[in-house]
């Protein structure tokens, strides 16, 4: 099972990103554990400067803006 964290302080793009990953995981039937990290100190701990960021199994794979569907598909 994959662990995916969405880093963001609660802006519209962060919510869109979370929803997109949720939706595509359901479509593909991929089992994931999805978390949302809103605490700014925790976000900075990942060294991400532009939100939303995405962390896949402990590694930052995306930062700044909503990821494309192709990109999300690659993670699942």
């Amino acid at each position, binding site marked *: 099972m994959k662990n995916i964290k969405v880093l963001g*302080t609660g*802006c519209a793009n962060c919510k869109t990103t979370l929803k997109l990953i949720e939706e595509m995981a359901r479509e593909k039937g991929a089992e994931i554990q999805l978390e949302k990290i809103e605490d*700014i100190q925790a976000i900075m701990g990942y060294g991400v*400067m*532009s*939100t939303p960021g995405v962390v896949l199994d402990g590694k930052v794979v995306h930062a*700044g*803006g909503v990821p494309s569907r192709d990109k999300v598909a690659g993670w699942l």
Partner: protein
Amino acid sequence: MKKLIQSSPRGFLLVAAMLWFGLYKTLEPFSHVLVKALPLEPGSHAYNSLQFFFYDTPKVLLLLAGVVMVMGMINSYFTPERTRALLAGRREGVGNIMASLLGIVTPFCSCSAVPLFIGFVQAGVPLGVTFSFLISAPMVNEIALTLLFALFGWKIAALYLGLGLTIAILSGYIIGRLKMEAHLEDWVRNMPAVAATVEGDTLSLTDRIDAGFASVREIVGKVWPYVLAGIAIGAGIHGYVPQDFMASLMGKEAGWWSVPVSVLIGVPMYTNAAGIIPIVEALLAKGASLGTVLVFMMSVIALSLPEMVILRKVLKLRLIAVFVGVVATGIMLVGFIFNAVV
């Protein structure tokens, strides 16, 4: 289409640019044909309003799409990480100017303000230089400039660009001179310093074209209702509305206090550059003076309560107060100068 872009990205850009210009040139004649087909008296108010609407709507949207496409491609060269590396260790002065200019081309969303702020400071970008970037990035952006250009002409757009940059450069410089590093929250100061490194850029021209299209979809998809509302308001009041109410509040005769009042009204309001344009259009049409309206627009975009609440997590109250005070003063000066000159 995707294959076409991949096989010859340069050719694609050339053809796209030619199509764009061709389309742009046909807009005006087309709007006349369209409005003549309607059962309206030529020269009447309704006729003129509709012709204005039919011409301005596609014009503004086409301009916006073109500019956002180009900026989306330029943005792909200036990631926040690269901008940070360019600014790390810069002296004040030169650093403030660079930061303000980079603020225009670096992709930025107001919700990223805080992580960006910390990331900059952590990598050794001086505090004042960081502020120059943070002030310029939301205020001087391509959407505000395009809309000002399309609706009010290049002089106003250029003026907005020049004044916005000046405020960002000077405010950042002053904040830097005040040596307020002690007023960062403790946990920010205690974070380990990081080196500002950039990973090698592997994007091809095709990727950048994709990035351009992605930002057109995202931005134009989001702002078109505001643009439409702005033009509809502009067309609607083309000669209909009496110019007394706003003129007495924000007009030339209103007196010096209209400038600070506009800042006070502007700060609690929060909207993006596109959302403010309908309001600007309405205010100007009702006789408000240009300087006062620009003051209002800048304070809505550059100073917002929600942003300050988020910034409070990293800045102590005194530094926030200085930030707001310096930027508000700069904006008001611009308003006074503007009202005196124009």
